[in-house]
């Protein structure tokens, strides 16, 4: 059942990305282009997604799950060098390619040189991160 829920969640997530335009690199780069013709779409997507998630989290935090252990009781507030460096590098890559992991996997449903090569590049980056010693993480 957990596997079926995860599949349905992924499917709904992908449709949400698609109808909101988030699979288009131009929309991401347009959102990041604050000095140019700023595209507010990504902000609209966040304003749609975050409140829904917040309500679910608030109602169920710390509670047992029907198909899993439990909803985490606390959020992670830790700030460290790894967060700043990692998020900083992620942002540079996001501004260059206009794609993040969710859209990259979803776009692979339409195989083309661009969609497959950017997904492959992301997978290489994820694999390389395993080389960073755990102590440094």
């Amino acid at each position, binding site marked *: 059942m957990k596997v079926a829920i995860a599949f349905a969640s992924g499917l709904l*997530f*992908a449709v949400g990305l698609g109808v909101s335009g988030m699979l288009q690199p131009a929309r991401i780069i347009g959102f990041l282009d604050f000095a140019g013709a700023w595209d507010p*779409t990504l902000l609209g*997507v966040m304003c749609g997604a975050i409140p829904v998630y917040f309500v679910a989290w608030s109602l169920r935090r710390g509670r047992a799950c029907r198909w899993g252990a439990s909803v985490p009781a606390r959020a992670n507030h830790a700030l460290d060098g790894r967060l700043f460096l990692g998020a900083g590098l992620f942002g540079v890559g996001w501004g260059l390619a206009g794609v993040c992991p969710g859209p990259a996997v979803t776009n692979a449903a339409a195989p083309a040189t*661009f969609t497959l090569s950017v997904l492959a*590049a992301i997978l290489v980056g994820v694999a390389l991160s395993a080389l960073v010693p755990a102590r440094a993480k």
Partner: protein
Amino acid sequence: MGMALLGGGLIGLAAAGLLVLTGKTAGVSGIVEGVLRGERGEWSWKVAFLAGLVAGGLVLAWRLPTALAAGPPRAWPWVIAGGVLVGFGARLGGGCTSGHGVCGIGRGSLRGLVGTTVFIATGALTVWLLRRLA
């Protein structure tokens, strides 16, 4: 903007459903990493989530083909370097747009809020610099 809110609502619903029913976080970079690593005990639901993303992509290709990416937004070296940085940075920083952005901020996480602010800032700087170079 209506479609942005609607799409965002679906994304929030998808992530919230996974959280409430299974206790898991819909952070795509962490899911990809677990699948690549062959993470014990978590592998099957993570593979199923990624298969769901691709299935959703197939539904879009069938009903709304213009939603899918058409081609690269920049010259190839930028795109490939960008992809590698996205994958590497997301894992080093422990999250991407879904994990830090939606699920992190959505549970009032300071880590998620700071991560999201940092990657929007460096992304904006990158876009600005590339335009200056062009």
